[in-house]
């Protein structure tokens, strides 16, 4: 599944159990359970998926199939400051690609990766709906509008 191996603590397993039972352990609630679980762990590594599958009484393959289908679910941990570049159409025509290139260059990582120190991760998303401010970049809960490649360094500095 994924290259990252983690060991779940008893407390973590307990937490997943509680989430699953709060949705009545119904297989139809799988996506809601995964949303909540990702909210707790930040991502959905294989080990977590296995517990979810057991609790929801479905196969691990089914859980894996759902996790990989939806781009919102991730099997890789995000950085402490997850950076998302909006690559919706409005941002695209106003130069989001150049901004993305600059982030890749400054951080030395590709889309979907995290910096080795775990500080930043880089993803693209499709339209946050702040098209008036395009190109838009979000870092954690903070939104930056009208970003140009030369502003990238300043944005990163804010998180020192």
């Amino acid at each position, binding site marked *: 599944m994924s290259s990252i191996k983690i060991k779940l603590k008893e407390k973590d397993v307990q937490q997943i159990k509680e989430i699953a039972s709060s949705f009545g352990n119904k297989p139809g609630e799988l*996506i809601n359970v995964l949303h909540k679980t990702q909210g707790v762990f930040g991502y959905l590594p294989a080990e977590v998926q296995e517990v979810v599958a057991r609790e929801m009484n479905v196969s691990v393959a089914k859980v894996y199939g759902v996790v990989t289908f939806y781009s919102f679910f991730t099997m890789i941990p995000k950085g402490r400051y997850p950076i998302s570049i909006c690559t919706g159409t409005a941002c695209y025509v106003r130069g989001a690609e150049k901004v993305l290139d600059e982030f890749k260059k400054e951080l030395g990582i590709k889309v979907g990766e995290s910096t080795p120190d775990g500080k930043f991760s880089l993803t693209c998303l499709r*339209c946050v709906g702040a098209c*008036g401010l395009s190109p838009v970049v979000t870092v954690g809960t903070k939104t930056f509008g009208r970003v140009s490649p030369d502003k990238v360094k300043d944005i990163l500095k804010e998180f020192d």
Partner: protein
Amino acid sequence: MAKQIKMHLLVCCGTGCRASQSATLQKALERELKTNGLEDEAKVVTTGCFGFCEKGPIVKVHPDNTFYVEVKPEDAEEIVKEHVLKGRKVERLLYTDPKVKEHVPDSKHMGFYRKQIRIALRNCGLIDPENIDEYLARDGYQALGKVITEMTPESTIDVIKKSELRGRGGAGFPTGLKWEITRKSKSDQKYVVCNADEGDPGAFMDRSILEGDPHVVLEAMAICGYAIGADKGLIYIRAEYPLAIHRLKIAIEQAREYGLLGKNLFNSGFNFDIDLRYGAGAFVCGEETALIHSMEGERGEPTFKPPFPSVEGYLGKPTNVNNVETFANVPIIINKGADWFKTIGTEKSKGTKVFALAGKINNVGLIEIPMGTTLREVIFEIGGGIKDGKKFKAVQTGGPSGGCLTEKHLDLPIEYETLVAAGSMMGSGGMIVMDEDDCMVSVAKFFLDFTVEESCGKCSPCRIGNKRLYEMLDTITKGEGTMETLDKLKNLSKVIKDTSLCGLGQTAPNPVLSTINNFWDEYVEHVVDKKCKASVCKSLMRYVVIPENCVGCTVCARNCPVNCIKGERKQVHEIDQTACIKCGACYEKCKFNAIEIV
């Protein structure tokens, strides 16, 4: 006795304005009112989107309709001391009309609003979406009361049918007819589903309605439930819309408290309640069968229709799926009547349509126009024309399923049928304007990149075919395409359209076909002359030094990351084309305009 509030300061707290600190602004205004002892005279109200996102954050003052733009928290003091206290407008914060360069005192005189009619957005920017009383004060839940206490389900459906309301989610299916089919499907359990997946990247109409006026959707869903015989509603909303989710949750809670959702509504024995279901970032889940599978906890893969959801939908039960904006039209149609609604719009498309206007346009924002308005009016009057005085090139509607229209289409009325005939479609309401700096081959490639990533992979024409389309477009942008590539593009596009299982695949080639049809010369230029006039396709660009302008300042050579510019001080420089990576650094750094792109 408390003094009567004379003035309201409406602060937009939609996602767009929140991103530029409107929440801090709101607090600053409240603080200033308090410091100046004006709490009893003026009140700060947080509202949904005013639509004029380009100039956010926006503060609108009622009752005089003053429209302040790009307001910063620091400006709060002046607004309160000057406007609220002394009744003098703060000139410098007023919107300036770019055409006449004058301040516009109120929103009624802004070109942006003049041609708009607000039906679906009528409460957005006017009421506090987190307060059900404000919705009630605007005739909220009156329509629901009316249908339950005075009308039969059949007569309710009749009004919607007569209004000729068509689905705003893209395809334009007659809403009344859909309700009737679902009503006629026999079952012990039926569902009303609101499609709030809004997958088109560059569209934010539905989100703005949910953020600005969540109750209108709840009310309409209950009306639909009454009409089709369902007691359960589900809203399928993107998890990427946290603010809309937050406001919906509050709205549902309040409606339950007021007995407007739940059991025995209006003492009629009719029950209706609503729950939220979250999407997880898959464009194809906007397609109704995929959406239903996703709500069931499965992968969101579409299935063949028929059976349509109206007959066999969520958990196998009859399910009526409508779009957010479609629902937003329903209560007012019930209140004002089908005949009123039909006076707006054109022969085949009644009412209004909301568009998210974005791209290279002066007034980016959310607009609602009567059907039949021309693209020219939208782009040049409401939108205020093209940014930076550039030349208009194309307008894209319908998102990844739509097409690019050009200069020659500008006078077309916006209607379902005309847009399809012109090679695009209404879609859910994304409208992206492009100028002379946009390369149409690259735009087509951008959309294909999107569909390839979002294809669920269930059927091969879409999964493999679109990938091949993307690769062909890629070779063209790299200067490796031939006239034969163009032929293949056209043929494969037709095959994919004819043979894909769901709407995603069937419409995915539209951006390719419409750009080929409308910008054939540009494609030929790419494959024959190996040129990209818009200077977007890197492989087709060359940076060269103009000897007459070069003074030999060496700035370019010092900034070139690959050291491929040679030349002595005070001598004309030269770029080694074989080593140049086309980063453009030299072009940006040269102060003598001595480097050009050819």
